């Protein structure tokens, strides 16, 4: 460790794992949150309580559960995913999906009261109504994506357990920081920590500046 190529490799894997996990988590969490926020069905209150509880799930516990599922004698052992980047993605998906669902739920509920009647009176079908409210809630949802990304990229317990911190294979920034610190390489540990902070800053700035919104606006004008 300490060589720029190795550091870059660790950073690249961190970004790959986290981005993939947040993307998959968004595909699960955002529709689930919208469903919970905008529809009434039996068991909805229980489902909301479960989502909010899972938002605070300790990453180490997620790591243990995913580890047991993927271990040789676990129900998914035949997939041979333990100690691979895919296992780390699975653990992070479990971590971020409830966060994305919970924050989407809050965001759409806040907008539902305001926009639902207007959209209905303009003749929106139920699916158009949901899409309109989700669009109006986009700032809150993006904030959820940013929070989920920050949580996932800075997480260490679960990825350590299911990834194993194997050099050139499953070592990511957080597990590398622990390793470097234990070996007394404080400079490298701090360096990686600053890179983590920088990634978080760039990602959040990108969202806060509304770059995606501007891209959408330009696309509409074209």
């Amino acid at each position, binding site marked *: 460790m300490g060589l720029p190529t190795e550091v870059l490799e660790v950073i690249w894997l961190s970004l790959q794992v986290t981005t993939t996990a947040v993307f998959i988590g968004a595909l699960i969490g955002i529709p689930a949150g919208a469903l919970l926020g905008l529809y009434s069905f039996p068991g909805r209150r229980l489902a909301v309580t479960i989502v909010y509880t899972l938002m605070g799930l300790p990453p180490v516990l997620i790591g243990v559960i995913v580890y047991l599922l993927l271990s040789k004698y676990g129900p998914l052992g035949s997939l041979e995913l333990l100690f691979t980047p895919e296992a780390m993605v699975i653990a992070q998906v479990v971590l971020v999906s409830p966060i994305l669902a919970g924050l989407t739920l809050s965001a759409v509920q806040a907008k539902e009261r305001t926009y639902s009647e*207007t959209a209905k*009176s*303009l003749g929106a079908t*139920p699916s158009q109504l949901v899409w*309109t409210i989700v669009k109006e809630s986009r700032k809150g949802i993006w904030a959820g994506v940013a929070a989920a990304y920050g949580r996932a990229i800075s997480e260490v317990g679960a990825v350590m357990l299911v990834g194993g911190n194997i050099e050139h294979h499953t070592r990511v920034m957080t597990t590398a920081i622990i390793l470097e610190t234990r070996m007394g390489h404080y400079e490298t540990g701090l360096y990686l920590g600053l890179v983590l902070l920088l990634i978080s800053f760039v990602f959040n700035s990108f969202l806060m500046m509304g770059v995606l919104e501007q891209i959408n606006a330009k696309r509409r004008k074209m």
Partner: protein
Amino acid sequence: MPQLHLKHLHVAIEKKSILTIEQMSLACGKIYGIVGPSGSGKSTLLRVVNLLQKPLTGTMNYWGEEVDLASLSHAKALAIQRQMAFVAQQPVMFHTSVFDNVAMGLRYRKLDRKTIRERVSEALQLVDLADRIHQQAATLSGGEAQRVALARAIVLNPRLLLLDEPTASLDPANVSIFEQVIKGIHQQRGTTIMIVTHNLPQAKRLADHCLFVHKGRIVESADTSTFFDQPQSQELADFISGRMIY
């Protein structure tokens, strides 16, 4: 044949009766002024007609089609809602451009882009906001936003236009523009209009027929001149003269 006929309507919230109407008919192509004290049920009436609020009981005959308001299917409600348009007292603007706001209902109806562009431009010209087409709706003043809300409603070319105290928070200039547009739409398209207003001179200026709603009931209904000049009930006489305390 009336355009809209309500029967045996009863609206209650948490067992408290809000609105009870035995019979109410609207003729095609007229402007109806709905007046009455605050909390009398005027806005509830509009919301029920626009199918935004479900009553406990009641049927509505809309252009010959009779529906049970208490057990209306989504599809049927949507088909009726798409023949109406509603403008609320406080305009709700979507966080996008003025164009997209006005185009929203047309997009819901899946009209083609060219038609949407033409109709949105025409509607914005009517409310004198054609130069704001690309402006973000959130940056409009209250009066401009309300005019955009009116454009968003009239662009749908509704058979029935429902206006819930649309000018309550507007300055005189915006009120004047608003009223001119309403009159113009009514004359050109023959749109039936229901306007809830606290502004009695406005009801006199705009409405062909007025209804007085008090304590959740239609107390009096008459053509505008009779309504204001020869009120039949003591409540309406008190309301018009400003003696009614509520």
